[in-house]
């Protein structure tokens, strides 16, 4: 029962004929990396020192874009109710949605990161640390996205609220993730992964509870 749902979730989030699909966050992510050198000037040293952090901020901001189509459309259309009637707990369907979200949002972002790196003049070593950090951090970001989207689904102005909610919650990921590029080093990636793990473990339960509460 889970497999067809995961396949549908991925197809839906990739494109599915709705608002932008998976391409929009990637383009946004690349646009930030492209604009940054225009804003601060072509000082290669400065770019190389701050570029990694910019990529992290861009990833965080790009995570806001898919939030409004993550849960809300399927909740409106009755999909979550129909799954619940088939004995599938909301925790399960939210966990599946989280996996699909990571595959369709974070994976393309990580594939686009080398392009960002080149635009910002990052060294190969920095690029490696950046990718590892994103690999550790983006599951947490995807988990946060699902939980926040579930909490705000059905609210008026929910999309704007979701963006505001995810930012502060993602700060630990940003600190450790971007920190791994300079001060904290390798330990930063381990800490990012730890934060990510906690978020991934908690998110389906938070999102599931939110969906059930929304029925009352």
């Amino acid at each position, binding site marked *: *029962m889970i497999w*067809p*749902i995961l396949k549908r979730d991925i197809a839906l989030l990739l494109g599915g004929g*709705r608002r932008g699909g998976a391409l929009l966050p990637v383009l946004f992510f690349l646009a930030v990396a492209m604009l940054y050198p225009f804003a601060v000037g072509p000082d290669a040293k400065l770019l190389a020192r701050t570029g990694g952090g910019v990529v992290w901020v861009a990833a965080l901001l790009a995570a806001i874009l898919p939030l409004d189509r993550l849960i809300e459309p399927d909740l409106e259309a009755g*999909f979550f109710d129909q799954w619940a009637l088939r004995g599938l707990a909301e925790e399960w369907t939210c966990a599946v949605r989280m996996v699909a979200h990571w595959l369709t949002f974070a994976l393309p972002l990580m594939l686009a990161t080398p392009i960002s790196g080149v635009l910002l003049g990052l060294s190969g070593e920095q690029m490696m640390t950046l990718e590892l950090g994103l690999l550790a951090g983006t599951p947490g970001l995807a988990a946060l996205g699902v939980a926040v989207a579930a909490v705000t689904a059905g609210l008026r102005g929910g999309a704007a609220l979701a963006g505001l909610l995810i930012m502060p919650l993602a700060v630990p990921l940003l600190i450790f993730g971007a920190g791994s590029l300079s001060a904290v080093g390798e330990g930063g990636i381990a800490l990012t992964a730890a934060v990510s793990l906690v978020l991934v473990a908690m998110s389906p339960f938070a999102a599931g509870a939110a969906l059930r509460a929304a029925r009352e």
Partner: protein
Amino acid sequence: MNASEPSLRAQNVACRRGDRLLFARLSLALGPGDALHLAGANGIGKSSLMRILCGLLRPYAGKVERDGALALLDERPALDTHLPLGGALAFWGRVDGIAPARLDEVADTVGLGDLMDVPVRYLSTGQRKRAALARTILQGAPIWLLDEPLNGLDTASVAMVERLVAQHCAGGGLCVLASHQPVGVTGLRRLEIAEFAA
């Protein structure tokens, strides 16, 4: 479908929406072959009772017991609007583990056999309702909860729904049907929610 006999019982159920108590002390018991028509004016609590019966809404008081799988048809078709009808129904077929041949059979039953290639968003209100009905039938559950299944349907389709409900009950299934319109199914019991209004 189900080895054990399907049954649906509600005991002294009350429903509160916001500050209003919609109904209270409502009891019903249904077994194989039973069909029940929940009747009443708009806003009296038909849909709320439906959601309580299928377990999506917690009753304010009382309890609901159910034996057997359940299929719900409500105002949301739960079909992907950008997909062709065939694809949208096939998704539920895969979730419910139904053979693709059965899908075509059900589509013909509800008169949508020719529209399987049309995206769901191009279907009319009545066609969407019938598509949702196809999804409900496809599930193969012994308990049917149909919330306003006749909305937007033409007279021929209304007769089709009545026939399907009668067939389902004759085959040992049970059906609860909420509608503000009269429903012509032989042996259909009628429950006026207004009698339990608080």
